[in-house]
């Protein structure tokens, strides 16, 4: 895997009440190993907490992991808050238990990419390196 020359800062967030953090931690670690600067929020964050952390940490991308079925509400709220804060330049991507028809709806509100179960971390790394630079 190629190391990043210019470090991209990315926030990995767990919004909502969902406690499944295996995927978020694996992705956070894989991105760090690939040379990204990774900030991990930990569990049980509100959309407000995530957007505030993203602004404070000056990240180029936010990756959200949701396996609880609450993705429609939580992603949309994050997108709204980014708009309110004039921070729509921050790339938002995500992963989790998200049916195909919801992926279409989430892309309509500005989510750049949703990675579904079985995605290789290399695919996420390559996508983020290309999209955030």
């Amino acid at each position, binding site marked *: 895997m190629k190391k990043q020359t210019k470090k991209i800062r990315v926030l*990995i967030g*767990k919004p*909502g*009440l*969902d*406690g*499944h*953090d*295996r995927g*978020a*931690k*694996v992705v*956070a*670690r*894989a991105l*760090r190993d690939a040379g990204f600067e*990774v900030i*991990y*929020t*930990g*569990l*049980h964050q*509100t959309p407000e907490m995530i957007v505030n952390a993203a602004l404070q940490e000056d990240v180029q991308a936010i990756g959200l992991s949701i396996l*609880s*079925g*609450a*993705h*429609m*509400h*939580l992603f949309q*709220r994050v997108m709204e808050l980014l708009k309110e804060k004039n921070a729509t330049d921050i790339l938002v991507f995500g992963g989790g*238990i998200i*049916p*195909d028809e919801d992926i279409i709806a989430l892309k309509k509100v500005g989510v750049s990419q949703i990675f*579904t*179960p*079985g995605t*290789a*971390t*290399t695919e996420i790394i390559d996508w983020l390196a290309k999209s955030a630079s």
Partner: protein
Amino acid sequence: MTQKFTTVSNHPIEALYTADSLPSDWSIETYLGQPGHFPYTRGVHETMYRGKVWTMRLFSGFGSAEETNARYKYLLDHGQTGLSVAFDFPTLMGYDSDQERSLGEVGKCGVAIDTLADMEVLFDGIPLDQVTTSMTINGPACVLLALYLGLAEKRGVPWSKIGGTIQNDCLKEFIAQHAWCFPPEPSMRVVVDMIEFCTKEVPKWNTVSISGYHIREAGSTAAQELAFTIADGIAYVQACVDRGMNVDDFAPRLSYFFNAHNDFFEEIAKYRAARRMWAHIMKERFHAKNPRSWLCRFHTQTAGCTLTAQQPYNNVVRVALQAMAAVLGGTQSLHTNSLDETLALPTEETARIALRTQQIIAEETGVTNTVDPLGGSYFVEKLTCELEAEAYDYIKKIDDMGGMLAAIDLGYPQGEIANASYIYQKQLESNEKIVVGVNDFLVDENPPIPLLRIDESLQVSQSKKVAKVKSERDPKKVEATLAALKKACAGTENVMPRLIDCVRAYCTENEMISTMQSEFGLHTDPAMF
């Protein structure tokens, strides 16, 4: 390249096992015993499934109490023999449906329960003295148990007649599942309160389902699942003994819950090792005298994390093989996952296939005809010994740290699991390990399958129910019962009787939990990765 022969947990496997593979002191008497006898390697009952097949218990819950009640009746009509309640995330975390933190989450991952009024609907038409109910709830387990007891009281069913299990395993929440309400120490105090209360008042209730399932789902190896779960069990027993309880009074009502992952023989060895370890630990470490205290009775669920979104019908095959491992390992009850669970909660049809899978194993395959058919296999016995040894090494490390609470504080089990899960992910990406349909044997397109959708308007209707309950109850009783609960939390009085009073007064779940949090404090994720 030399091919490596290892289990899914990277445990090396030899080409052939013979009598020489077993430890030099291995004997049938010490290592196996007879089924139903110490050290229970061959099973907790003498007759096993010839006497009674395992309880077929599908974990289910979604949407409103009305919808879930209908699903329970459907499953019971199709031959299910026990209930298992899945709660939504607000319920699991101690929030009411009308709170901001619950937005988008109500009814999604399970059923939404706020007050006794919801429990009345959830169990409508289901005789509480005839079915056993398992409730997967941990942080607010004390509240849900109080709600169930409140419901039984209202129905006129004596607490001595109700049977079931509450997961109530707070330690594995900090290790793996993360649905907590209080910090670790007060969480332990509440668990001990519940064990103490049930030992006297609800004698047929299983007070803690010590759970490896979620540890495994979070990415642990089989040996870590075994070790951390039994170390949690040791911590609960020790905490009750420290409270002054007699081990034989409460230990018979502790039960276990394990994962059934893909590696067939490793899983079977894990269950056998668990029984043998727990029997020795209870007899020798805690000096339990009642043989029922020595029993590692357990529920099994097939591994959700092994299901694939790609070619989802293949999941039926995975689940069948995992369920077979659980049965050959001697499980007391079993949940089989549905093929669509990497995408959504199961539909009625996929849940029925999952139930039918168990019925096919029980009725058609013949594996229930004899007790512990794999006992004495050189391979199975050797693997059982190896998993046991690996788990004892972990338990020794945890003991040296000062026990599981101290180990959790150090982030030890959490770190071990995160490392194992990362190693596995790398092995998948290098194709060192193969998952059919994911990194090999692919198809170009995965046509969509029908999925269960939860109505987004549920939050509104559920909030209205909460408002209705609040308008009809006696506010003075609410205030008084919550004040008494707060006082119990501040002191050493058992919280259970106070919680049952709150339930009778129709307090909401969050009213009870936030009152307890005002004394116990909150816990936040240390966010390590």
